[in-house]
């Protein structure tokens, strides 16, 4: 039950955030999508022992969160579902890796480095996806997908799925609540009603789809997906994409923290 409520809350929060009007939100959705993809590829391409080199990539989420005026805490909470998997697997690395390194007389397993590296990668990649949707919104993202020549059938289908998830979540949570009130203290649905419970919902879903289709027809649906205003790419959009791409490339080739560090320690 609680996971359904959380899911509904997540969807609405990200929807609300996407409606803001900030510098980042005003950027062309295609530019934001491409920047995110480049960012992800570069972050994932780092070696397993890399930690310092990954740190400059924190600038991207930090800047976006602040420029887009996004609340930090709810976004961090959204990351939790991904955390147990990566933490659970990563924590085994120190057990595995028998190479050691020394820092200030302290001998540690190299596994800790890979563990930190995996956690950092998880943080960066999950944030990138969340920030994309929180600053762009599903409708704009769909428009960007259309610009990339993704067939309209798929895009339309994606949008409809998204639109109806909240409707069906509400329906499922009603059914779940009704069931648990009649059968208290159960962990899940008893096998005797597996079929009828889900089956009824499927039948109702098919009827709903029929009504949706009729409503769409009455409003002039011809199989075309209309987004309303089509945003145009501006010079500023291109500069944004080029600027970040340049930064990501530089940060991938040069280990910025180590360079600045050696500069500093060299001076001192």
């Amino acid at each position, binding site marked *: 039950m609680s996971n359904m409520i959380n*899911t509904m809350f997540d969807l609405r929060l990200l929807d609300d955030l996407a409606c803001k009007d900030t510098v980042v939100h005003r950027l062309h959705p295609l530019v934001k999508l491409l920047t995110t993809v480049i960012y992800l590829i570069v972050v994932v391409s780092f070696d397993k022992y890399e930690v310092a080199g990954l740190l400059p990539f924190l600038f991207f989420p930090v800047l976006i969160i602040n420029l887009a005026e996004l609340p930090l805490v709810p976004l961090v909470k959204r990351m939790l*579902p991904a955390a147990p998997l990566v933490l659970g697997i990563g924590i085994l690395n120190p057990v595995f890796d028998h190479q050691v390194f020394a820092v200030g007389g302290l001998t540690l397993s190299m596994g800790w480095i890979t563990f930190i590296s995996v956690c950092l990668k998880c943080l960066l990649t999950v944030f990138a996806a*969340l920030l994309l*949707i929180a600053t762009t919104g599903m409708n704009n993202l769909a428009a960007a997908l259309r610009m990339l020549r993704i067939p309209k059938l798929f895009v339309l289908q994606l949008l409809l799925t998204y639109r109806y998830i909240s409707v069906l979540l509400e329906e499922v949570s009603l059914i779940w609540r009704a069931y648990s009130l009649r059968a208290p203290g159960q962990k899940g649905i008893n096998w005797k009603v597996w079929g009828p419970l889900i089956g009824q919902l499927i039948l109702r879903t098919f009827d709903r789809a029929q009504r949706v289709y009729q409503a769409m027809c009455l409003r002039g649906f011809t199989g075309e997906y209309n987004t309303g205003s089509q945003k145009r790419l501006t010079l500023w959009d291109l500069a944004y994409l080029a600027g970040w791409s340049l930064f990501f490339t530089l940060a991938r080739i040069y280990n910025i923290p180590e360079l600045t560090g050696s500069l500093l320690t060299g001076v001192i």
Partner: protein
Amino acid sequence: MHMADALISPVVGGTMWVATAGVAAYSIKKIQKDLDEKKIPLMGVVAAFVFAAQMINFTIPGTGSSGHIGGGLLLAILLGPYAGFLAMASILTIQALFFADGGLLALGCNIFNLGFFTCFIAYPLIYKPIIARGYNLKRIVAASLFAAIAGLQLGAFSVVLQTLFSGKTELPFGTFVLLMQPIHLAIGLVEGLIIAAVVSFIWKERPEILEKAALGKKLGSLSIQRVLTVLALAAVLTGGVLSWFASANPDGLEWSVFKTAGVEELESSGGIYQTLSGIQNKIALLPDYDFKASGDEGAAAAGEGDEASWPVVSGGTSLSGLVGSVLTLAVAVLIGFAVKFFKGKKPNFTS
């Protein structure tokens, strides 16, 4: 069974994206051929149903645990394989975007693992032939069980292969397979039983739904073979081209694809982790040929690269690395505050 971005290499992610895009394009073409506009809202709403229904826990009789539906096979049964695959793809896309479930780079892998094997292998090659002689309870149970198990086994094996090719697994191939397959056998069994219960209910109440899905799409001309051939070719080609690219440009973006290693992806339930760590502890007692080798490889890889990374650190570089890292973090925090500061000031100037 969702792969995560953090555990995948760009080449594997890219290859699976191409393969998935190929299957999706083919499915769209197939649907458009006999375009039934009604199907578009139906696909959307049924996909939303599966998304919501995945959150329902089903008690497994005789055990304390519970299971839930996976979706791919049920979608294929309700909508036919092509529409089912596209519906599964949109569910996974939304999960990746909104719920940090899987990732955008790993999305190709996830759609393929959970959508392709269920809709294009398990459904047409197992479910349909069994059901072909007409619906009855026995056949529904057999078809759902075998198809669900086969779909999940193939998907799980695909996860193993993808992690293996990503070079991120520290588990030997055999151990990983032995871990993944039995777990997914159990999961498949439960999913098969749930699907059987649901399908037999619908067959009793509204059989036309099932018939429409099955009859509407003919797989008669065995077009599936064409899909598979095209797919295999595309995967080999892109894999080959991409990895050639990777080795041709060692000092460009330096995709350290086959050198990287993180860890493998597995189910997130506690029991599995315990088994896993138990096995790993046992392995750790053996002469750690594999792990040493992979570690040395990492060190060698880092040595080749321009940047001196952790394995070859000397005291000096590690100090400068630490100082630089702390500085980078400080700058990141400062950027945050600076933006807030200027943002906070702006309204004062304008108002």
